[in-house]
């Protein structure tokens, strides 16, 4: 992997193929430090695959992925699967796996729980928390790692409005408090407007638009791309 110091993350002609299905096709993407990039597109357009490639969970079939040497990533998944342990240990485990001593990991995990308002739930079984609380816990774990690049795969898609707002508020606070880069996928265009500075529209594994957020919502993308038009109208999930 070569490192381009100007970009926090750089994908060059990246393709990913699963058997005969081409999930990503020749994707080029540069994300600078501090940018907040939203990935939008219909189901199966390649958003999750792109996030996993960027995080190193998936190998590319072709192309190159590189990141700056000082980038520290953390990822929040769509469904926060909880291990059979307490909320505190769930967060501490993430830190321990990244090399933090267990005692220090506990202290930092508690701080992370306070940050997301779950300090009173620290000793509760993570699996008994509500869906929204579990996602806040996943955010706490990511936040505890002190990353400067956060990837989120539809972080609020499976929650009710209240939980969605809470998670989004925490994300906005996080972004405001630190120079963290965000790369997230979302079907919620309101959320994209509120959180992103730049929008990438994917269709069938290809990047069809890569625009600042204002331009994306103002330019008539749909005329040349009918599927994108339907997506922006909310008729394509």
């Amino acid at each position: 992997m070569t490192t381009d110091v100007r970009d926090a993350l750089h994908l060059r002609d990246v393709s990913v193929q699963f058997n005969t299905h081409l999930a990503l096709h020749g994707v080029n993407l540069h994300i600078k430090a501090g940018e907040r990039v939203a990935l939008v597109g219909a189901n199966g357009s390649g958003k999750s695959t792109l996030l996993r490639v960027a995080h190193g969970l998936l190998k590319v079939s072709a192309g190159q992925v590189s990141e700056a040497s000082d980038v520290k990533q953390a990822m929040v998944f769509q469904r926060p699967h909880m291990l059979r342990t307490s909320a505190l240990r769930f967060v501490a485990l993430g830190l321990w796996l990244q090399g933090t001593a267990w005692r220090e990991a506990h202290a930092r995990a508690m701080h992370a729980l306070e940050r997301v308002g779950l300090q009173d739930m620290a000793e509760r079984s993570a699996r008994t928390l509500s869906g929204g609380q579990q996602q806040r816990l996943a955010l706490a774990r990511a936040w505890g790692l002190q990353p400067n690049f956060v990837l989120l795969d539809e972080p609020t898609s499976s929650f009710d409005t209240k939980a969605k707002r809470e998670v989004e508020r925490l994300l906005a606070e996080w972004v405001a408090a630190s120079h963290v880069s965000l790369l997230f996928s979302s079907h919620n265009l309101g959320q994209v407007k509120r959180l992103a500075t730049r929008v990438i529209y994917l269709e069938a594994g290809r990047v069809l638009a890569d625009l600042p957020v204002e331009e994306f919502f103002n330019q008539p993308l749909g005329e040349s791309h009918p599927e994108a038009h339907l997506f922006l109208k909310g008729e394509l999930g």
Partner: protein
Amino acid sequence: MTTFTDTALTSLQLLTQFDPLLWSIVGRSLWVSVLATVLACSLGLVLGAWLGVSRFAGRDVLLTVLNTLLALPSVVVGLLIYLLLSRTGPLGHLGWLFSLKAMVLAQAVLVLPVVTALTRQCVEDAERNHGEQLQSLGAKPWLRSVLLAWDERYALLTVLIAAFGRAISEVGAVMVVGGNIEGFTRVMTTAIALETSKGDLPLALALGFVLMSVVLLLNACISALRRWRQRTDGAGSEPVQGVLA
């Protein structure tokens, strides 16, 4: 009917009067099966957890072989262990044939595929749910297998109980390698087979009662464990159901 009632009453007398012959057979059975289960689990849990997470060429073939071994006839295992331990066999110098050690080995070999296959399934299901998150945190496959096996510890406890149930109810292999020697290698299942053929039905039935009680107790443990897990964990994956033979 009268014969059955008489037999049942005599067997209950043997049980309640703590007949030394009967209880020595029970004790020996439990000892052999506990040792065999510990031996099989110490290897099977590790192997199963590793198989649940690792991906390598030939894994599918290995899993097919493993699943085939689940249906391995116990007399075949007995025969193979017999050939290994017989005087002209590769392990003949150990002098284990017709001893408790041979019976432990035979039961362990029989139970090992059960433990490995069920552990593999548990850990693989857990990997499907948690693997990506742990991978995202930097956990390598061996560490993921340990963490996921620990996370599935209640399901694996059920596997352990099921393995013990399989071991203690086994008859063919221990008959072949143990020889069913009175006061030495006679266990519940081999004693039941022998006493039935001899016509000493009360002793056979009394041993049958004990064996059934052990299996019943194990299934009760599995049910209690499942209920306890549902109470403490809320929603979660179901433990492996009892497969007591």
